[in-house]
């Protein structure tokens, strides 16, 4: 994409140009192949006039996000730009692919599909898709932003994929918070883990919610933290036969697809 087209596209999309927008355009002008840039380079790449560039660049130097070398009269990104969202999860292209794959499964099976990861003692949603023709009543808590690590099938599936020492560490933390539930939780988790070991997924019907059935499977990709893929549907339609025959195996296939996408990303 040529710099000219990029700046045109932006100017059209942003009728209200703010100093902040300009600062971001300037920061974006630096690439892995363009580490040091002078005023003229920055003007060409960002599509802004040289005087504007100079003003914004100086602001960014004052704020500590750009470094300026008076000798060469060039700027470069300062290390602090790493704090501006580099920690963003995942690569956009991979996430998009995964989303499409999840949609495929959701539409085929008429279930809600959610990809989650662990954040402390909860499973948080990374992405979630609804089936094209949703047969689920809208008042069901189908899409939950957070689920408990210890008491949801999503949590069990993830726990079962962790190394033992880590699982023990997390269970210890969970039990510390709710000592009275400890034994019951442990039993249910052991049960779920056995199912994951045998079938690759764990299922739970009318347990987490009376009207919902859930199938969850761990997703392990090289170099990433463990994630969990789950599908949620009406309890009446998540029969053990259906889980065994199609929901479970196809969920595992989806997890495998994610692994493949990741490798080739």
């Amino acid at each position, binding site marked *: 994409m040529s710099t000219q087209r990029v700046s045109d596209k*932006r100017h059209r*999309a*942003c009728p209200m140009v*703010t*100093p*902040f*927008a300009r*600062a*971001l*355009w300037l920061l*974006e002008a*630096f*690439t*892995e192949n*363009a*580490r040091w840039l002078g005023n003229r380079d920055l003007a060409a790449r960002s599509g802004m006039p040289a005087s504007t560039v100079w*003003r*914004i660049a100086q*602001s*960014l*130097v*004052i*704020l500590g*996000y750009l*470094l*300026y*070398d*008076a000798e060469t009269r060039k700027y470069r*990104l*300062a*290390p*602090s*730009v*790493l*704090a*501006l*969202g*580099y*920690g*963003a*999860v995942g*690569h*956009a292209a991979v996430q998009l692919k995964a989303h499409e794959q999840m949609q495929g499964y959701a539409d085929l099976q008429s279930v809600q599909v959610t990809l989650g990861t662990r*954040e402390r003692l909860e499973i*948080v949603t990374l*992405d*979630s*898709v609804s089936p094209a023709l949703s047969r689920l009543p809208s008042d069901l808590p189908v*899409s939950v*932003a*957070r689920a408990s690590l210890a008491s949801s099938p999503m949590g069990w599936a993830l726990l079962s994929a962790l*190394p033992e020492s*880590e699982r*023990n*560490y*997390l269970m*210890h*933390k969970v039990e510390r918070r709710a000592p009275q539930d400890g034994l019951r939780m442990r039993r249910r988790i052991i049960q779920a883990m056995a199912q994951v070991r045998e079938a690759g997924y764990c299922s739970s019907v009318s347990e987490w919610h009376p009207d919902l059935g859930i199938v969850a499977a761990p997703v392990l990709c090289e170099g990433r*933290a*463990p994630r969990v893929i789950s599908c949620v549907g009406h309890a009446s339609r998540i029969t053990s036969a259906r889980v065994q025959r199609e929901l479970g195996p196809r969920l595992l296939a989806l997890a495998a697809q994610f692994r493949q996408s990741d490798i080739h990303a």
Partner: protein
Amino acid sequence: MSAVPPKRGDAAALLTVSRGLMVLRAFRSDVAPLSNAELVQRTGLPKATISRLTSTLLQLGFVRRAPGGRAFELAAGARGMGHALVASSELVQAAEPIMQGLADRLEVSVALAMPDGLDMLYIAYRAGRGVATLRLRRGAVLPMATTSVGHAYLGGLDEHNRRRQMERLVAAAGEGAGDVERRIESSLADLASQGACTVIGGYRRDIVATALPLRVGRQAVLMGLSCGKACVGPDLALEKDVVVPALKETAACLHERLASFDGLP
């Protein structure tokens, strides 16, 4: 590296840019999406300001709406700046394989961090192959006041600068000031006697981390090198007898390998 102070008319622009970047920073490396209300809480900026800034970030592709529509998450655009920095950084690329060696050997996470205000910013990071908890990344921001890597950095400063920085940290600590001061003094004592400091629960409960200061490159840029892991019942003897020597060895190796570089990532 220097800047020319802005004219008065640019003060408002500088403020907007500063605030906008503050919002991006507020996402940290968190996985879960943030709503405008949460951003207000994290930044202390007024609601209307946050709303305008997230709008700009949305338009420029730095954030996108999370599933559910109520909150925002970082998008590919936000990753671009940090990526440009790291991908063009020979220093990071030289350091990480050495760090990976230590990470695999001790099954820990290893980080190289630079100061960023009152925090430490990870500029290089490697996790041992077996590690799944404590998965931070480059761009992670951790408090200088309470972490081993922060204390190690403080230990590397000259007396005058150390005192100044400690004053800032203590002032920002509010009620916890006494505790912060004690912990730092304890770490400084460790650094003086054994060349490294160990902190338990500095970042999260049950995280044990050991760190030391490291001067990098021709400019002798002061950084902190740390290794940490999650464990219940940390073994301080192990930290002393195994981790500290291994960390020192890695530090020496890094110092040599990075000697020909400028010093900044």
